[in-house]
């Protein structure tokens, strides 16, 4: 059943929803990347909640004009207009008053959403029968999606994606260094507006599938996931788009297998699963990698301290140090060095002395800056330089017993 769903074998409607959702997921992931890098991920929350009054007003207007009221393009147009007004309110409040952006976002989202609810209750009473379905925009509803609706969503997603690809250079520039971008002649305000506009387009297109409360997740979670895997903007946008598309596809397909699996929440949870995997297992930035790094560091410190202790024939009390030395065949169980251990210990002590000279000498300033107590001196200086330092140290002093 699940395999059938993933391979789009569950009938016409499920296939439509899955394809539409995948397009949307890719577009949301790529757009969200720039929103996230600009550190304005939560603006999407204001945008999405601000769509509600537009949906209500568009419905009322279309009914007043004698139409059906449920035509998707009309409702989406309405939601886009009110989301745009919400966006302008956020930026106006942030720029023209002393309120910080978070307060502006919160104020706009709650007020627009509240007003939207008022409109919904009016609609419920004015034409009880025909209004059914508008609540679907809160949490998304894919049941009874028509071919035209899916087409609108797929085309909207594809257009958004194309625009992002076109604008990716200036958007990346603004996201990383707005002042440099402004100095290079990029109109920062306009690019910011474009990022927000694209996020708005994704939100509006996604209303029908995942609903306005959860569309935020599709804009935030994939970029956060992608951030774990790369340090480059274009790679990040690509990975984020892949994550978004994959989770939307899996989520939509899974939700088609059972009636009690609403599409939006399943997509969000699939997306979160990808995030959780990345959080723990990503190379370099993941939690697991950090733990391994920490353990490796700990071993190196213990090893080095152990060798220095051996070189100066001091007793080793730390069990872990002794265990490491024994395992490497450098010391016996009673803490006495083996032959190999004596050689390594002598080298460790000599390296310590070499570092001491390097750090005291102005000529080696750049090399000395790399000193952290653990770094092998061979990785910093050339053979010739080491030979020069060794000359200064001189040969072994004192009698060997």
């Amino acid at each position: 059943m699940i395999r059938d769903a993933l391979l789009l074998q569950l009938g016409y409607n499920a296939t439509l929803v899955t394809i539409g959702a995948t397009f949307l997921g890719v577009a949301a992931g790529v757009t969200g990347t720039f929103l996230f890098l600009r550190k304005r991920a939560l603006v999407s929350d204001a945008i999405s909640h601000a769509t509600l009054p537009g949906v209500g007003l568009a419905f009322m207007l279309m009914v007043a004009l004698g139409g059906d009221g449920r035509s998707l393009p009309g409702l989406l147009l309405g939601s886009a207009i009110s989301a745009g007004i919400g966006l302008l309110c956020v930026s106006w409040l942030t720029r023209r008053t002393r309120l910080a952006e978070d307060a502006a976002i919160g104020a706009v989202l709650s007020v627009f959403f509240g007003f939207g609810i008022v409109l919904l209750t009016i609609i419920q009473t004015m034409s009880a029968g025909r209004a059914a379905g508008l609540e679907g925009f809160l949490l998304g509803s894919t049941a009874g999606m028509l071919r035209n609706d899916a087409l609108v969503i797929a085309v909207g997603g594809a257009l958004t994606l194309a625009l992002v690809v076109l604008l990716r250079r200036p958007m990346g520039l603004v996201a990383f260094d707005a002042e440099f971008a402004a100095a290079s002649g990029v109109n920062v305000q306009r690019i910011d507006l474009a990022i927000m506009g694209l996020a708005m387009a994704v939100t509006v297109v996604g209303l029908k599938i995942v609903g306005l409360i959860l569309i935020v997740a599709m804009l935030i979670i994939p970029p956060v996931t992608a951030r774990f895997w790369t340090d480059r903007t274009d790679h990040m946008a690509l990975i984020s788009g892949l994550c978004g598309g994959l989770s939307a596809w899996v989520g939509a397909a899974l939700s088609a297998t059972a009636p009690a699996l609403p599409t939006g929440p399943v997509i969000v949870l699939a997306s979160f699963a990808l995030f959780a995997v990345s959080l723990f297992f990503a190379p370099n930035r993941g939690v697991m990698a950090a733990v391994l790094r920490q353990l490796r560091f700990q071993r190196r410190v213990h090893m080095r301290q152990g060798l220095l202790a051996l070189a100066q024939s001091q007793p080793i009390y730390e069990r872990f140090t002794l265990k490491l030395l024994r395992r490497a065949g450098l010391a016996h169980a009673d803490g006495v060095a083996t032959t190999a251990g004596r050689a390594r210990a002598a080298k460790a002590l000599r390296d310590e002395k070499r570092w001491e000279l390097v750090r005291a000498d102005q000529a080696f300033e750049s090399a000395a800056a790399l000193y952290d107590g653990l770094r092998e001196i061979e990785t910093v200086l050339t053979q010739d330089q080491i030979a020069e330092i060794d000359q200064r140290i001189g040969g072994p002093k004192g009698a060997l017993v």
Partner: protein
Amino acid sequence: MIGEEFVALSLTPLLIGVFSAIACALPGNFLVLRKQALIGDAISHVVLPGIVVAFLLTGVVAAWPMMIGAAAASVVAVVLIEAVRRLGRIEPGAAMGLVFTTMFAAGVLVLEQTDTSSVHLDVEHALYGNLESLIWLDAMGWHSLFDPAALSGLPSELPRIAITLICVSLFTWVFWRPLKLSTFDEGFAQTMGLPTGLIGLALVIVAAVAAVAAFDAVGSIIVIAMFICPPAAARLMTNQLERQIAWSVLFAIVSAVLGYVLAGYGPLWLGSQNAVSAAGMIATVSGVILALTAIFGPCRTRLGAPST
């Protein structure tokens, strides 16, 4: 309007609305000043999974288990946000958005999976609340206020939100100086020996308690709106924290009363038969107040900002 009918039908919802608005606006002042306004937004979203899990565990729609569940969910959310932020080195806004949408999605999914058709528990209810339905059937008029038999028929939300309001006010009053200090100058507060981390956490928990209690009665829209709009509007009126709090309480009361009256009677004046959502209307009124202060407020611009 001022008669038996008013006491029975409008007095309790009005009081509940006013109490919820003030209970949320008080901690909201500090959240807005600390640039943590969206914590309120996050909390009001994660309340849903908390309530659903509490329902699954107890099997009944009772107030106390649900409030405990919701409070637990908010604490879980705060911890998760902090964990994601630190473990993943992600900026706080994105971490917050990630956690609350995921928890909300989980809540909706579990709700759909369980059979809640027999009880009154659905997402729409969580969002709008049911302020209008909290009527006092036993009231026969103003004298019922002194009649113990009638008083026992009060909707249980009223005493709960009243107690919450008292607790929130006490918290603000008792911890006034530490709160004020750590909000305005965290570094200075630290050097004075104040546990600023603990104060911040306590503030978030108090906000969560207020949110949960208010949510129970009026739904999550009012909660977000009251956390942010009255304090933000008050911020534009004055430069003093004491006055700001007073303004925010005033704005919260005005929003609640005006919103409730407009929702209940506004459509009738316009010739329509049915009332509109009171929760939505209260949020809308608070937004109008914020808009007015943003345009006319005496302290609306940043100090020292260019006067363009």
